[in-house]
């Protein structure tokens, strides 16, 4: 059952210059992406820094207005992109966000109880002792103690703060949670704890996640399906296992080869694909396939024509001219 269907989401940031703030161009942060999220599913959104993953996540929650596109949400099939702020209000409860930086996402001047209770206070879902009980319940469900509620965020470690952030996201009993790199600011040992917690909570509360990450190994653990983004576009989307075993896009292959293997012998034997150069400037993307300047399989057609995202087999979509001929290496 589909929870969210995103069609052709675009977000262009204008580049303004001069005293008159004339628009001289656009940064195409998100350039027409489409995907869907099933109920109870985790969709991983992977890509390098600056490829538009975070922007896409924030557009979905209407934290920044999208330039165009539609998001069909829930059984009601409401297009969230067209709602006014007031109409959006009831849907805000149903989708929440977990932030990347656990230091910046908690107001240092509020106690844990205030932080976790804020969404409920704003939406007037609970008050008084019921609110207190609910806060305790939420803290316990993310593995914190009830006496922590009177403390301030600065007294907690990164992992604990992230748990507070998760408790806040759960407060309104959402159906969808956009997790924006929730573990990339944490130590590796803590990362695993938080990932496990997220997986447990998904079962417990029947949540769906859009899990944004730049690290494929993190996404592997938690995602059912993975979408790989490059420069504002989705280049490949398929279920997690297929993506790891047999990637269809050269960029995915390069990302997978960067994931270290636990077996040192296998790690040594494996071919490492080093991508040349940086992600191109999104205000002046390359012609044709955006990836061609860094792609080792690129041919002339790649420089001229932009490949569309096409279904190559059941549930696997790829945007590459050579997807059917390339034999790419997985894990």
């Amino acid at each position, binding site marked *: 059952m589909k929870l969210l269907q995103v069609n052709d989401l675009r977000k262009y940031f204008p580049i303004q210059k001069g005293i008159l703030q004339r628009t001289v161009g656009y940064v195409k942060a998100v350039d027409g992406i489409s995907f869907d999220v099933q109920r109870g599913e985790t969709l991983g959104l992977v890509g390098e820094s600056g490829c538009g993953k975070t922007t896409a996540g924030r557009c979905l929650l209407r934290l920044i207005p999208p330039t165009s596109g539609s998001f069909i949400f829930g059984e009601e099939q409401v297009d969230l992109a067209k709602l006014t702020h007031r109409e959006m209000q009831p849907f805000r409860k149903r989708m929440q966000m977990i932030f990347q930086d656990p230091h910046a*996402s908690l107001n240092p001047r509020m106690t844990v109880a205030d932080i976790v209770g804020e969404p409920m206070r*704003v939406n007037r879902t609970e008050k008084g002792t019921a609110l207190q009980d609910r806060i305790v319940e939420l803290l316990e469900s993310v593995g914190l103690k009830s006496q922590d509620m009177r403390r*301030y965020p*600065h007294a907690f470690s990164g992992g604990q703060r992230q748990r507070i952030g998760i408790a806040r996201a759960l407060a309104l009993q959402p159906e969808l949670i956009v997790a924006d790199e929730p573990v990339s600011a944490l130590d590796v040992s803590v990362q695993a704890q938080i990932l496990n917690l997220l997986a447990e909570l998904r079962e417990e509360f029947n949540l769906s996640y859009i899990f944004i990450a730049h690290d494929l190994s993190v996404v592997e653990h938690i995602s059912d399906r993975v979408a790989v983004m490059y420069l504002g576009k989705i280049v490949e989307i398929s279920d997690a296992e297929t993506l790891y075993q047999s990637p269809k896009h050269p960029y995915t292959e390069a990302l997978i080869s960067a994931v270290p293997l636990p077996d040192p012998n296998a790690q040594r034997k494996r071919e490492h694909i080093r991508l040349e150069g940086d992600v191109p400037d999104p205000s002046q993307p390359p012609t044709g396939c955006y990836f061609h300047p860094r792609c080792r399989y690129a041919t002339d057609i790649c420089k001229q024509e932009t490949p569309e995202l096409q279904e190559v087999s059941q549930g696997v979509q790829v945007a590459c001219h050579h997807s059917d001929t390339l034999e790419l290496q997985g894990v």
Partner: protein
Amino acid sequence: MDLTLEVPLRLSVFHFVSGYGCSLFFIKIGAKIQYFKNMNPTIEITAEVEDANDPWADGGQLSYRQLIWRRFRKNRMGVIAGALLLLFYILAIGADFFAPYHYNEINMRLRHVPPQRLHFSVEDGFYVHGLKSVRNPESLELEFTKNLAQRHPVEFFFKDAEGRRHLFSSTGPMFLLGTDRMGRDLLSRIMYGARVSMTLGLVGVFLSIVLGSILGTISGYWGGWVDNLIQRIIEVLSAFPDIPLWMALGAALPPGWSSIQIYFGITIILSIIRWGGLARQVRGKVLAYRESDFVMAARAAGAGHWHIITKHLLPGCYSHIIVIATLAIPGMILGETALSFLGLGIRPPMTSWGVLLEEAQRVTVLLHYPWLIFPAVPVLVVVIAFNFLGDALRDAADPYSD
């Protein structure tokens, strides 16, 4: 017989790093010396270093205000300045009681009396000598010298002719800082003048805080043309030279106004010019916090503008506002002093430090009656104390900075 001796030793090490971050370590050294029956002393020395900046030390339960207070307390200069200012405000508010005379008690026979020295003897307690007047044959003015034969004891909790109590006064003339051209006691006038000068700063700063934070928040939060307009207004206001603008506004106050009306008029004039700086600082903070993740989270939860501004943005600015306000008060005090000095501020019979200094304007007056410049001293002390207090608050205001 067991004997336990504990010698607690507390060493506090201060280091000031010019203006920024004053960190402090407490080193607790406890030496435990135990004497046993066999008289072999065992000495246990424990040393524990407790970093005052360690947020863990408090168990994370202290509020922001408590954390600021913790750090502020450790800045010695700040605490001294704060205590001094508190004392000044108490003296100013209770001037009726603390001053030996009423500020307008005129005694034309005792004009320009130089400051008298306070003496102490066992039989009389504190006393001042009597005055002997001699007319100067050249200037034809009365000049006063000590009459050693006469002693006027200082009485505490003195009841004057109108039944008012004073902390200390005397039946005879007792002018510890001398008198002015109308024979009024300068010490009393300084105490009464502090009322106007020191509260004017507070009221003025309060007004500019209100104006500055409202406009700064609007400017930073909504941005766009509103922001542009407010910023341009601030630029125009700050481009005016202060003194001529004050003078023009001060001269525009209707001469028929009562002293209280003039007082508030001056306050408004001073704060109109001063709100700009505060508004800019608040705007900068609001701009930074507006994009922060915790504001994003609040918006994702569906919080409205009012909730975000009052719960997230303004509390983030409080520390800045307090610091800027503290540092702005001396400016206000100096502004009032300058205006009154020029004769455009507070008008007699109301008195302020500026009014008092106005009397010391002419060089000939200063040459003959140098004590009339004394009101400059409290101005200096208060301004410096406010600056120290502001610095200390600024250092204390960001407990999360490290």
